[in-house]
């Protein structure tokens, strides 16, 4: 495998291998929280933070505990537990020190636990044999990419609110169609860099 520069992975994770537009991971909170730019920006930041931290934690767990004991097959369940514990911890810390963000996120913060993008990033970094630096760049990039996607959708949805969307398509329906169009637009970036 060619050694990919972490910087390349970082840019690719944002644009060409965007979690939402090319992997379609983390869709539930993406559709649910993308009604307002401010809240979706908050959630995006939280997801980015959780992604970066859990990728680091899971990296160490995988290479320093699971591999030495030949327990790679446990990675799914262990990653899920570590992500869940981390989100719980984050919730307590936010509530204490950033109550406004905590209340703005409300029910969605615990939902990050079951955001498949988070587990996806941890699993991708292992499947793709990334080094520590590459993994970190990949996770931060993925988080920023996810944020970019949700904030862009929120911006569009705020506009759609005043448009006359056919009744059956209002809400999640039009959001999914919009996402499809945005994904097509993002293909335009694919000439820049490609990662595996």
């Amino acid at each position: 495998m060619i050694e990919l520069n972490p910087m390349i992975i970082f840019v690719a994770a944002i644009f060409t291998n965007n979690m939402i537009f090319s992997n379609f991971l983390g869709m539930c909170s993406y559709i649910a929280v993308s009604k307002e730019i401010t809240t979706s920006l908050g959630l995006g930041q939280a997801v980015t933070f959780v992604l970066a931290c859990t990728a680091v934690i899971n990296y160490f767990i995988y290479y320093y505990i699971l591999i030495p004991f030949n327990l790679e097959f446990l990675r799914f369940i262990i990653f899920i537990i570590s992500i869940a514990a981390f989100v719980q911890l984050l919730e307590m810390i936010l509530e204490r020190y950033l109550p406004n963000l905590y209340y703005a996120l409300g029910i969605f913060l615990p939902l990050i636990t079951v955001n498949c993008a988070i587990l996806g990033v941890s699993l991708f970094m292992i499947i793709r044999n990334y080094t520590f630096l590459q993994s970190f760049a990949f996770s931060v990039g993925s988080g920023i990419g996810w944020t970019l996607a949700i904030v862009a959708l929120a911006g569009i949805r705020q506009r759609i609110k005043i448009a006359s969307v056919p009744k059956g398509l209002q809400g999640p329906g039009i959001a999914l169609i919009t996402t499809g169009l945005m994904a097509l637009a993002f293909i335009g970036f694919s000439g820049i860099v490609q990662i595996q």
Partner: protein
Amino acid sequence: MSNILIPTVIFALMSAIFALLLTIADRTVNNYGEVKMTINEEKEYTVEGGSTLLSTLIEEKIFIPSACGGKGTCGYCKVQIDEGGGPVLATEMTHLTEDDLKNNVRLSCQCKVKQDIKIQIPEELFNVREYDAVVENITDLTDVIKLLRFKLPEDAEINFKPGQYVQLKAPIYEGNDEEVYRAYSIASSPTMKNYLELVIGYVPEGIATTYVHRHLTVGDEVSINGPYGDFHYHDNDREMIMVATGTGVAPILSLLNYMKEHNIKRKARFYFGAKTPKDLFMLDYFKELEETLFDFKFIPTLSRVTDDDDWDGERGRVNNAIDKLLEDGEDKEGYLCGNEAMIESVVKSLTSKGVPEELIYYDKF
């Protein structure tokens, strides 16, 4: 053997580490310790930090009106927080007016007590208690209105001003999966400290009223808290113009009973508005009060009588009766209870006769 043992041990160990971390965080990050709560600059409480202000107050047996049970949707639980409330949260914004924001008024069910806190609450709220009352009697006043009498526990007493209301808790029952509190004006006189009487009308598909009308029977226990409210008897010599429609009669009953028991010598007129004769109730009792009270007149008015009805009282809406019978508003004050439309039109009639607006007291049901 070790094939099974090692994964199990490692898995258990890692779970234990995460659990330990969370427990430590719970003890440190989530521990706000003991904090001081100062109410009205005089009463000091030492309370455990970490819960909402509303539940902290309830812990201390101080009851703030709250109709949604702390979900941040009713906007009743407003409290002035002078110090230690933290930033105004997004969840509060929908219920706070500009004046509220200027005066540090917040929703107590949303703010958490995390540091020393100074709050202001109306003095009357210290009087508010929670009672487990037993239904002692249910009487049908009309097809859709019942009079209920509740007995308070042996050692409990309720102190209220005539006109105030209590909150009744409707529990979860078949067809309703949430606990709700609803306001009901006290119909009994404050001298009866051991009983409460409420007049409760049926609202189709209403949570609390369906509970009262369809499920409650004599002997059942209900949770009531109170008293609350600024609508109450004002002691002076002005003539009283009382107006009620439907269940709005409840607080008027309390006022009249109070006046009768204390032998208060004040001129009073009571306009009872309804649609048809069957919507009127307790007519005999009000007639009797005309004899026993100092100078009291009962004026029932019906808006939907036909010539076939045997009716020699006033006709039309209550505000028409007031327009017709009230000479001038001087030295008078108004006590109105009922629906919004009635209150608005009666306030208009009274002010046009010269009753000062600040002397017109009302509860909108």
